[in-house]
């Protein structure tokens, strides 16, 4: 438990809260890089994923890209761009964008794909144009899954931005690497606690957003379903698809 005391002592030290390289400044850097990367990666991956999910075309390559890129070791990508581009912000930003694309792409196409085809047909039958179908039907209904993709991408960005301090002078990860170099466990652990808190707070915000973006109509049917669950088991009631469907 002494280790935690060291970390809290480091966190409580006023010297770590002011001036260059202080906790607030590192936190701001971390948030700024993460936000920048999220915006760039979203601008690339979300429209692409929406297109794939809407048309159903190019699904195989999208699955392969989002699955295959997962095997890519983040540290490898970071260090590779680090020696290609050199010290600075460009290398980590490019590496982070590449690593953030798979979850965003997967969330976007899964979200658009999850919408019941009959709902889309109904929207078309009512005379909606293609863009209206996308904007007024598919996007709101698929939103919780799309936000889920943004959520895992953001968490991944925050985690990798910590690691990016290995190649650039940026973010909360600096405390971890500085502590590793001087064998100051208090600083390392203090930095880790800050990173963990940041990730958990942001994850919580996304969990709330995911709940809020569920359209009111969907929420209403969901509660209705809960109430009308059959009291007898299905073995007694019969299979829904053999019951009533026979001529």
């Amino acid at each position, binding site marked *: 438990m002494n280790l935690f005391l060291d970390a809290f002592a480091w966190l409580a030290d006023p010297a770590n809260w002011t001036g260059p390289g202080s906790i607030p400044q590192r936190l701001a850097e971390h948030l700024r890089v993460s936000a920048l990367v999220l915006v760039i990666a979203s601008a690339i991956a979300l429209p692409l994923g929406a297109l794939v999910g809407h048309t159903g075309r190019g699904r195989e390559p999208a699955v392969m890209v989002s699955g295959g890129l997962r095997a890519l*070791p983040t540290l490898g990508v970071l*260090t590779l761009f680090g*020696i290609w581009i050199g010290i600075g912000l460009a290398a980590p930003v490019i590496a982070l964008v590449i690593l953030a694309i798979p979850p965003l792409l997967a969330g976007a196409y899964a979200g658009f794909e999850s919408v019941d085809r009959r709902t889309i047909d109904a929207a078309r039958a009512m005379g909606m144009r293609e863009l209206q179908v996308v904007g007024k039907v598919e996007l709101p209904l698929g939103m919780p899954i799309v936000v889920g993709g943004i959520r895992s991408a953001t968490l991944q960005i925050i985690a990798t931005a910590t690691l990016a301090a*290995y190649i650039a002078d940026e973010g909360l990860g600096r405390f971890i690497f500085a502590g590793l170099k001087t064998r100051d466990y208090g600083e390392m652990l203090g930095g880790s606690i800050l990173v963990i808190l940041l*990730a958990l707070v942001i994850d919580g915000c996304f969990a709330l957003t995911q709940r809020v973006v569920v359209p009111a109509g969907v929420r209403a049917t969901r509660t209705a379903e809960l109430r009308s669950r059959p009291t007898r088991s299905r073995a007694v009631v019969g299979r829904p698809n053999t019951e009533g469907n026979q001529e």
Partner: protein
Amino acid sequence: MNWLWSNLDLVGELMLVHLALSVPAIILSFVVSVPIGWLAHRYRWSRGVLLSICGLLYAIPSLALFIALPAFTGLSLRSPVNLVIALTLYGIAVIVRTSADAFDSVERDIRQSATAVGYSSAGRFWGVELPLAGPVLLSGLRVVIVSTVSLATVGAVIGVQSLGSLFTDGFQRGIQVEIITGIVATIVLALGLDALSVLLGRLLMPWTRRGSRNGRAAAARRIREESA
């Protein structure tokens, strides 16, 4: 390319070290999360709690967990055991949800039939539920294999040897080939283990071999055809 030819031994050795880190973590996380997933499936009230804990665990950045874990376990920061524990925790966070879904995917009728023909609840678990949940469990395992092998490389920055050491060493010495070799070796290892798990799945679950990859979809189609 010269670097690669003169360091093939090193790459091979690091691949073995990397396997020794990731395989125990993969197996441990699978063995631990199957019963947890079953609990989440069996007892509704536990589902939300267990899945939330896993979600929180998964949200923790890896580097921060690697550093924070020794404060709980008392192990040295550079101990491979510390890394294996952290990787196992991430693996559990990933598979528990899939494993709960896997047990959910076993039809209620099947479970009731098993009870009706005289299975005890333990016998039903081993003889009916676990094999039928197998394909979904395998899909969860495959995700964990790929993410664990990739994540193990991060240990290199805290001084645990693995294929990730090629990244840190290559970065510090400015050797591009070394980093690329590390990336390729990591991906090869991940895909190799993934292929192995698929093979093992076919051996252990021969009924998934023929026809559609998704047994449930095939069954649903059969029922539809019969009733048409």
